[in-house]
C-alpha cells in the first residue's frame, strides 16, 4: 500500500468521524473510533513520505500533515473537548484539508539537498504544530460563537461568551509559541544554508510573517478593551481563514483526479 492509499483511507475515516459526530447522543462515541483510525492512516501516510525522503525534508508534506496534527490535538485534548460543535468542527476541518490535499496535490517534487538539516525539520514540525493549534483555536472560537448565539436565545449571552473565551485563547498562545519557534528555526536554517536572514526565492516568507502578525494582533486585542468579547472571538475564528488562505492553499498544486 502506498502513502497515497493510506491518505485516501484517512480521508474516508475523517468523513465517517464527522458523520458520527452528528449521530444522536449515545452513539457519538463511534466518532472517536473513526478518528483513531483516520489518525493511524494519516500518520502512516505522513511517516511513509518522511521515511522515503529522510534525511531530507519531504516537499509539500504540509497539506497531508496538517489534518494529522489537528486530529492528534483533538485526541490528546479529548477530555476538555466536550463541546459538540468542537467535535464536529475539527474533524470537519481535517476532512476539508484532506479533500483539498487529494484534489490538488503538489507532493511529487523531489526533496532538495539543503533540507538535510536539523533546523529544516524543526521548521516543518513546529510549523505544523503551530498551524494545528491555530486551527483548534479557531474551532474553539467558532464553538464559543455558536454557544453564545445559543445562550443569547435563552437570555444568557454573557455567560456563553466569557466562559468559552479561555480555550481558544490558550490554543492561540500555544500556536503563536510554536509558530515563532518554527520561524526562528527557519531563519537559522536560512542563515546556515544561504548566509542571509531571508531567502527571497520562496514567497511563503511573507505569508508566514503575515500569520505571525495576525496572531500578535489577536493577543494584543485583549489589552485594548475596545473590542467586545464577541468581536475578539470572531477575530480568532477568522484565524482559520488566515491559516488556510496564507499557509495551506499556497502549498497546493494543480487539480488532479485522485483515483
Amino acid at each position, binding site marked *: 500500500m502506498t502513502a497515497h492509499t493510506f491518505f485516501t483511507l484517512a480521508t474516508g475515516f475523517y468523513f465517517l468521524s464527522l458523520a458520527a459526530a452528528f449521530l444522536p447522543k449515545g452513539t457519538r462515541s463511534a466518532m472517536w473510533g473513526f478518528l483513531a483510525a483516520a489518525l493511524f492512516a494519516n500518520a502512516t501516510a505522513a511517516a511513509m513520505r518522511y*521515511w*522515503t*525522503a*529522510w*534525511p531530507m525534508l519531504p516537499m509539500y508534506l504540509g497539506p497531508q500533515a496538517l489534518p494529522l496534527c489537528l486530529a492528534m490535538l483533538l485526541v490528546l485534548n479529548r477530555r476538555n473537548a466536550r463541546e459538540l460543535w468542537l467535535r464536529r468542527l475539527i474533524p470537519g476541518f481535517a476532512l476539508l484539508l484532506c479533500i483539498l490535499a487529494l484534489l490538488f496535490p503538489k507532493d511529487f517534487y*523531489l*526533496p532538495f*539537498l*539543503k533540507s*538535510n*538539516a536539523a533546523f*529544516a525539520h524543526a521548521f516543518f514540525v513546529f510549523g505544523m504544530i503551530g498551524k494545528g493549534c491555530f486551527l483548534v483555536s479557531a474551532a474553539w472560537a467558532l464553538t464559543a460563537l455558536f454557544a453564545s448565539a445559543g445562550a443569547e436565545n435563552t437570555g444568557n449571552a454573557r455567560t456563553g*461568551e*466569557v466562559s468559552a*473565551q*479561555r480555550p481558544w*485563547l490558550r490554543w492561540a*498562545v500555544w500556536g503563536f*509559541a510554536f509558530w*515563532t*519557534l518554527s520561524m*526562528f528555526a527557519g*531563519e537559522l*536554517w536560512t*542563515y*546556515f*544554508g*544561504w*548566509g*542571509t*536572514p*531571508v*531567502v*527571497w*526565492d*520562496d*514567497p*511563503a*516568507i*511573507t*505569508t508566514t*510573517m*503575515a*500569520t505571525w*502578525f*495576525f496572531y*500578535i*494582533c489577536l*493577543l*494584543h*486585542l*485583549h*489589552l*485594548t*478593551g*475596545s473590542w467586545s*468579547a464577541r468581536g475578539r472571538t470572531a477575530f480568532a475564528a477568522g484565524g482559520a481563514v*488566515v491559516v488556510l488562505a*496564507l499557509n495551506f492553499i*499556497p502549498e497546493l498544486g494543480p487539480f488532479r483526479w485522485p483515483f
Partner: protein
Amino acid sequence: MMRIITTLWNKAGSIHLTVVLCLLLTVDLAFGYICLNRNTTLFAPLNDIGLAEWMGTYGRYNLEKTAWFFILMLLLGLLCLNTFVCTTERVLRLLRFRAQQPRSHRGLRFYFRFAPHVMHYAVIIMLAGYLCSYLFAHVLDTRTLIPGASMSLPGSKARIEFSAYEPQYYSAGRLESFKDRVLKPVARLRLVNGGHRETAVLGYNRPVWFKGYGIFMKSFAPKSKGGMGMKVRINLSIRKDPGVLLYLAGMAFFTAGMALYVTEWIFFKKGRWDFYGKKTRNNTIHGPAAPGLHGCRLRPVERRQGPILYPDRGVCGPPDIARADRGARRRRARAGACPPRRSRSPGYPGPPSGSHARQTGGGLWLF
C-alpha cells in the same frame, strides 16, 4: 513643549496603534505574497547588493511589484517605535513599583513579569539586526574554487584554500532517482592567516567563519558519482554581516522571554501563587499583592479567569472581567464586605487615567 512631547510619547506607545499596525502588516504581507510570487528575481538581489542600492534600482523601477516592500519597511519602523515606547513605559513602571516595595515582598515571580517585555525588546533587536544586515553587509562576488586553488579575503593577507573534496553519497535505496547522488558535499578548506594555518570543513548548512567573514557553500559539482566527467568545483558565497549577531541575539532573547512566560504560567497559574510567589489559600489573595482586591475572596468568574493582579498594568485581568470586577467591588464596598477601592500600594502609580484604553503594551495576562 513638554506637554506636546508627552502627548506624542503616549500616542506612539498606544496599544491601539499596535493593533492597527499589526493588521496593516498582515494585509501588506498577504499582498506581498501576490507580488513576490513569480517575481522572486526582483527581490533576490536584495541579499547581494544591499537595501540602499536595491531601492535605487530594482525597487524604484518596479514600484507596482515592490511598493508593498516599502510599505512593509515603513510599518515595521512604526511598530518598532511603538513597541519601544510602550514597553519602556511598562518596564519603568514595574521598576518603580518594585523599588517601593519592602524587601520581603520582592519575590521570584516579580522577575517573571519581565517576560513579555523581554520578548518585545527582542523583536526590536531582531528587526534592527535585519536592517543592519541589509544596510551594512559586505558581500563578495560568488567565488569558484577547484581543489588546490585559493583566494584572498579583501583587505587582508588571509587566504582560503580548497584542499579536498569528500562527498557523501546517497546510499539508501528509498529514492531511486537519488541513487549515487551526492547527499552531503564536504569540502576541506585550509585557512591561512599569516603564519597561522587551520583546516575547516565546509558543507551545505555548515558554513565556516574566518576573519569576520562567513563562508557558505552555494553550489558544487559534480552532483553524482561520475558526474558526466565534470571537474570538481565549489561555488562560495562570502559575506561579512554585522547584523547576524543582533538578530541571533534577538531570537535568543525572544525564546528566553517565551520560556519565562511559559514557566510562569505553569507554576503560578490560576491563583495558586500570589504576585510575590506566596501560596494563596482558597483563592484568596492576601496582602499588598492585591491592589484593589485586598483580602477579598475571588468570585467564581475571577477564579475561572485566574490571577488578575498586575501592578505594571494595575488592572484586574481581561477587560470584561475587570469591568465586571469594578462593579462587584463597589457592591462589596457598599455591603461592607470588603474595603472600598483603596489607594494602591505606596508609590504604585496605578493605571493611567482612562483605564484599559490607556493600557499600553507590555505584558499579556492571558493565563
